[in-house]
């Protein structure tokens, strides 16, 4: 099979050589792939659009000795909203980085593909950071790391108090007795409840959920640490705060959703 076909999302696109881009594609049929898109940094290239980060398209790939190359490509969706808004770009970047970190080449992940594509579409109107949180929790579940957030992951006992304990090593929340044996972090009961909704709520209704800046920070920080510990790698874009832009996060607090 020298030539093969992939229905894929570009989750990474790096400058390579003189005028090429090295793409990381996440495909429905074959999981994660790397491919070289030649000449796509020249203005006349016909594959330029398909080689951009966050593009969803059809790719015809040629198997090479060291690297596969893109023979033909036609973009199906280029998600203009991920180009026009800094917070949406950042949230999509964090989604892509997490997916890249959590998956390995040669394995297929059809559900993770659908989840990622759905999130890219929903990013047009939904709070980008709520989506980012929901994505992380749902991806963990799809990959077999579903965090238990409703009861103690160790003994199944009830969680109580205004502050609750969560540990990636235990695989979720812990009661006051069981938490002694684990490293982890404290979060508010409200943040824990919201995380349950982000994990279990209907995806298309996520935008009805509300959070304040403090909960947002607490949840995203908790999820970053949880994912980094689970996959034993650092999430660079998750450490880069949206707070880099003053008021970037606050703009969306209390904004009415599509309800």
């Amino acid at each position, binding site marked *: 099979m020298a030539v093969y076909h992939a229905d894929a999302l570009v989750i990474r696109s790096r400058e390579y050589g003189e005028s090429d881009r090295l793409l990381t594609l996440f495909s429905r049929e074959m999981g994660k792939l790397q491919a070289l898109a030649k000449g796509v940094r020249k203005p006349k290239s016909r594959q330029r659009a398909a080689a951009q980060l966050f593009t969803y398209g059809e790719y015809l790939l040629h198997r090479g000795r060291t690297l596969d190359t893109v023979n033909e490509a036609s973009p199906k969706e280029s998600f203009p909203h991920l180009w026009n808004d800094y917070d949406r770009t950042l949230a999509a970047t964090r989604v892509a980085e997490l997916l890249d970190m959590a998956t390995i080449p040669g394995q297929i992940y059809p559900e993770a593909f659908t989840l990622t594509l759905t999130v890219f579409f929903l990013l047009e109107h939904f709070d980008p950071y709520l989506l980012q949180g929901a994505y992380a929790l749902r991806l963990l579940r799809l990959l077999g790391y579903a965090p238990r957030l409703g009861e103690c992951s160790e003994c199944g006992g009830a969680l109580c108090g205004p502050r609750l304990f969560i540990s990636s090593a235990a695989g979720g929340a812990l009661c006051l007795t069981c938490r002694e044996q684990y490293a982890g972090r404290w979060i508010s009961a409200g943040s824990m409840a919201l995380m349950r909704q982000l994990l279990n709520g209907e995806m298309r209704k996520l935008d009805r959920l509300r959070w304040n800046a403090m909960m947002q920070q607490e949840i995203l920080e908790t999820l970053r640490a949880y994912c980094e510990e689970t996959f034993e790698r650092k999430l660079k874009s998750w450490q880069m705060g949206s707070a880099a832009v*003053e008021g970037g996060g606050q703009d969306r607090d209390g904004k009415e959703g599509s309800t």
Partner: protein
Amino acid sequence: MNFLQYPRPLADLIVALSRLPGIGPKTAGRLAFYLLQQPEAAESLAQAIREAKDTISQCSICCNFTDVDPCGICENPSRDQSILCVVEQPRDVAALEKTREFKGLYHVLHGCLSPMEGIGPDQLKVQELLRRLEGVREVVMALNPTVEGEATSLYLAKLLKPLGIMVTRIAHGLPVGGDLEYADEVTIARALEGRRQL
């Protein structure tokens, strides 16, 4: 790749060449053997590299590469000091200068925001830009039309607009001489967005 079959200095040269962007181990090997067979070329290359490394630095105002500080463009009194054009790389300044269309000053960021690669505002010449805004009326974003380039333009616009500075972006559109029907939807959408009255 294993270069142990070569004498150490030759292996070192191949390794050093293969670290250059766009050069793989095979090309590096070819270049190394060429240089050994052409001692004069090797000598003048070594000298040129050393001299450039010793005399070229970043302009303390615009961060472009220069052999005098401030650079010739920043020091040129006939250039419009009230308009700055922000670019990613020094080579972009050269590309814009070739057109002779732009009469203002430049600011070179040395990259663009790329959170996935860990490149944030602190890794770019953003503070240097914010420090030179006195008397600046307009900042033109001339970054690459990629997701990261756009994100960087949006980020800088958020910083600059509250200071009362007009922030513009060069038009993104169809390449001259290209057929409209071959253009992708993003390019066509951008070209429409940047339309002008005739």
